[in-house]
């Protein structure tokens, strides 16, 4: 009934896996390649790619799931906003079950607070239009891919003078944590699988810092099994040759200069600020805050009663996010922390590293 998908053609995949194996024989040591993007983590797990790679090429997951890197105090603020009688919180489904210090949006919804799951910031605009008497707060998490859409929704609200549409900024940028990871040096990363859809916005030229400053090779790849494997193949080749280049293997959507209009819109609405990341701590200029002139759209300015912040005990999400440990190394994984009762954010988001491992990688060893 389905046309065979050429992007997951088993024959081509076998051939690529064979090539990776050949190239890996020339490596003098085991190497670690980091997929930065959670959607890659998910795609790798879904297709079962990890087990197709030779033992000296390891894929590790990085801090690229916006849900996972969102610090717990952001969730505390979202929960506190939801408890205000005059607020409707709109969120991507991904955030609904992320634990805050004492609750989660899912629990607040059960307690009768108005929380709506939306697919797009535009859906939140529609909710704001229909309920002018309420403050409609969109939870603005995401990286460069998602943020321009949030800015576009803000722009639309401004144009329509839709005064009850606000955003709680939780925006994160890609470059600062990559730099922080490599510069800290506590995790060996020999090459990066770079996030294809962030790159649609940033363009491939953006990654010059990897070649110039970090001296680590990278490959911009798409999200099919073939895309990911071809990225691994080229990275193994670059590592073996000691070349720190960045290749654009996703030219069907990624251009050199990226989406300039989207970046201009971001620039108009947001400014870089120091930002805290779950597991990585505060990283200078790694987040985006609304510019002062748009303070009337900034939900973080609303008065709320916050629960005291407390991180879950024993949770090692932070190290998982840095690629320092694999999920099964965390004592909570698959014991008290499961997708049904997540303790850490990495288990909640379906593209979280722990959730992807729980679902797809426990296969033959844990059951």
């Amino acid at each position, binding site marked *: 009934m389905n046309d065979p998908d050429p992007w997951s053609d088993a024959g081509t995949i076998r051939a690529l896996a064979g090539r990776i194996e050949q190239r890996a024989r020339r490596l003098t040591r085991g190497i670690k390649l980091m997929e930065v993007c959670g959607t890659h983590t998910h795609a790798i797990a879904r297709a079962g790619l990890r087990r197709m790679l030779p033992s000296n090429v390891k894929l590790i997951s990085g801090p690229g799931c916006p849900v996972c890197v969102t610090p717990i105090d952001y969730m505390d603020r979202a929960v506190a906003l939801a408890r205000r009688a005059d607020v409707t919180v709109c969120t991507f489904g991904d955030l609904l079950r992320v634990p805050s210090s004492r609750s989660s949006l899912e629990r607040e919804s059960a307690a009768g607070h108005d929380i709506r799951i939306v697919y797009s910031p535009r859906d939140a605009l529609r909710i704001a239009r229909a309920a002018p008497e309420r403050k409609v707060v969109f939870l603005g998490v995401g990286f460069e891919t998602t943020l321009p859409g949030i800015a576009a929704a803000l722009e639309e609200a401004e144009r329509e003078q839709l005064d009850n549409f606000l955003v709680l900024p939780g925006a994160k940028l890609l470059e600062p944590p990559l730099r922080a990871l490599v510069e800290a040096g506590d995790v060996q990363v020999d090459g990066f699988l770079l996030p294809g859809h962030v790159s649609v916005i940033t363009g491939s030229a953006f990654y010059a810092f990897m070649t110039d400053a970090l001296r680590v090779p990278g490959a911009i790849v798409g999200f099919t*099994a073939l895309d990911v494997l071809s990225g691994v193949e080229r990275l193994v080749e670059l590592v073996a040759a000691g070349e720190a280049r960045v290749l654009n293997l996703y030219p069907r959507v990624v251009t050199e200069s990226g989406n300039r209009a989207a970046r201009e819109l971001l620039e108009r609405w947001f400014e870089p600020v120091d930002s805290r990341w779950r597991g990585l701590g505060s990283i200078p200029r790694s987040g985006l805050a609304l510019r002062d002139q748009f303070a009337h759209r900034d939900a973080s300015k609303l008065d709320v009663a916050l629960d005291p912040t407390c991180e879950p005990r024993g949770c090692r999400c932070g190290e998982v996010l840095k690629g320092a440990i694999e999920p099964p190394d965390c004592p909570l994984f698959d014991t008290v922390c499961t997708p049904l009762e997540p303790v850490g954010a990495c288990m909640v988001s379906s593209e979280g590293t722990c959730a992807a491992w729980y*679902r797809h990688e426990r296969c033959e060893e844990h059951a």
Partner: protein
Amino acid sequence: MRGTRVKADSRILLGHGAGGRLTHELVARSILPALDNPYLATLSDAAVLTQLPAGRPAMTTDGFVVDPPVFAGGDLGYLSVCGTVNDLCVSGARPLWLTWALILEEGLELELLERFVRGAARAASEAGVVLVAGDTKVVPRGKGDRAYAVTSGLGVVPPGRELGDQHIRPGDAVLVSGPIGDHGATILAHRHELGSDELRSDCAPLAGLIEALFAARVDVRAMHDPTRGGVATTCYETCRRGNLRIELDERALPVRREVAATCRLLGLDPLYLACEGRVLVWVSEEHAERALAALREHPLGRGAVRIGVVAEPSPGLAPLVLRTAAGGRRPLDMLSGLDLPRIC
């Protein structure tokens, strides 16, 4: 609708549930005409039925809550009868009698209620069952979501039929009667404002299809309808109950292109979307082809295919595994929590 004058009897009033004259009028005007049968016509406290045919009686009950209550391919009424009929059928029973209770929200359009009644009547006639008793209650506006339905069903497993997960053996084939995820995708697409002329729920009573399987003398080990949680959750539960392992083949899974597209758009997996008119069948390898042929001869089973195989149980291994199109292997879990659309 606030502020507009409506004709008093175009909507459900609280009084329609009070048991008095209004209730009688409602039943007589909106419910009985479509469902008329000798048992219901008496309007007495209980339906006194005839002697059951030979075999072991089987009973089931189910509650139905669906948003939207009318969707491409069905409605709350049709769905509520199909669901209960199908639960009886996959247990090997021939469904006979159903009860049907409705909980209506004050303000519901009568037209919608009549649509549910016609839907239930159509499903009952397609399945060859009789709705022998019913009830209607009305809750105040805001205390319910338009309408809920509760059905109970009674059927009989004919002598000699023995179905159950304990009969499934390593080497058995896993069949599905048609494309998966049609119902779930149709509902989710509606909720998330995706438009499609092609998406349509598979909602249907399976009585005829399943009897065709037995008529072809297929030795069926077990059957399940992959409703909530979809094919993956149903297979997972089967593994757990029967202490089995199942390997599904991703390339064999029948998924319509519009269902696959809906899943890609919303970040969901068709293996976890509900079907309301499909059956998963476990048969011995020798019977697999005969079973497929019998299924395909019936209009509801045209798309029947083999999707997997039962493997030797092994304590160290995940119970349910998908052989991916890419050539990898991926363990499948039960659906955890809600299936939410996601951006990442």
